């Protein structure tokens, strides 16, 4: 029987959306990245509508955004890993994540996906994940939340 294949990545970008999936993906990437001392960048993107200029001071003032990054840092520390927290504001979350992964030459981009259904019962994947899957130059992992009774 062959050895189990070891997952190797050197630089991962984690997309933080502020939901329960954040802790799960930070923990996962931290655990898998520790043996190879991978660089981990945690990115939270604040989407700015077109009614405001892109450089409007929104993200910097957001306590919620800061808490999301703090929580991610604390979760990584529990796994004895450090991550670089990044707060961005952009017109489109997907495009910002792909740009960040590209600029940092990341070999992995990880996103969490809450289990949600649209009105009518169809599973909702949103627009960020399809965009990232289509455009990211690196490997992409999507970690879906478990189905809860409430969501199903």
């Amino acid at each position, binding site marked *: 029987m062959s050895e189990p294949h070891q997952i190797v990545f050197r630089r991962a970008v984690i997309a933080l959306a502020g939901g329960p999936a954040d802790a799960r993906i930070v923990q996962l990437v931290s655990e898998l990245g520790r043996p190879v001392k991978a660089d981990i960048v945690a990115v939270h993107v604040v989407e700015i*509508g*077109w*009614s*405001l*200029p*892109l450089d409007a001071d929104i993200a910097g003032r957001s306590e919620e955004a800061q808490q999301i990054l703090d929580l991610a840092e604390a979760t990584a520390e529990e796994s004895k890993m450090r991550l670089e927290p990044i707060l961005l504001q952009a*017109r*489109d979350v997907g*495009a910002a994540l792909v740009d960040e992964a590209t600029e940092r030459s990341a070999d992995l981009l990880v996103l969490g996906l809450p289990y949600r259904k649209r009105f009518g019962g169809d599973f909702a994947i949103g627009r960020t994940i399809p965009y990232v899957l289509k455009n990211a130059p690196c490997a992409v992992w999507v970690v879906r939340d478990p189905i809860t009774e409430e969501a199903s």
Partner: protein
Amino acid sequence: MFVLVVGGGKVGYYLAKELIESGHEVVVMEKDRARADQIADEIGSIVVAHDGCEGKYLGQAGCARANIVAAVTGDDEDNLVICQMAKHHFDVPRTIARVNNPKNEDLFRHLGVDEIISPTRMILGAIEQDIPVHELLHLAALGEGELEIIEAHLQSGSPAIGRAVGDISMPQGCSLFAVVRDGIATPLRPDMTLKVGDKVIAIGPSECEALLHEQLIGGDSEAVSAR
């Protein structure tokens, strides 16, 4: 400069592309989701996939902070509504509308659209320059359309042929200011005599067109616009 382009057809697409290349901030509104996705794939995340005729969505697209709104859909009615809302509800400093049916131009102008672009007129004007069926050609409108720059192509039989410019009686508020002869533009002087083939450039209110035609071309008034 922040430009809101409403309509993601060929005109809107290339307009947005050129503006982005010139360093402007641009957002395109396109109500057809598939077309909106196609534009986003090609130019980036600058597309709002909603109907620009609805004020709520115009607001979401940043109309209130737009320096220019260009309504370039294929429907004149939509373009008029978009420019009206942009101008009167969102106080946009400059509105530009594509007018497909030349008969709608006056209505657009009357309702306060700042700039009117009529591709039909432009093509017609280009055709007329080569094949002068009409002898008066509207080159441009000045101000809010109250003054026109008009070209008169003098053919044999014109009452102006052989006459000095100073002898031609011009309608009130209208003046002849240049002549294009053998491809060279020259300012008109009162002693200059007009010849067959001259292209006389006049400026004046549009109501003077009939009198101008009578003096320079002769016969019934008929004109076409090159705008």
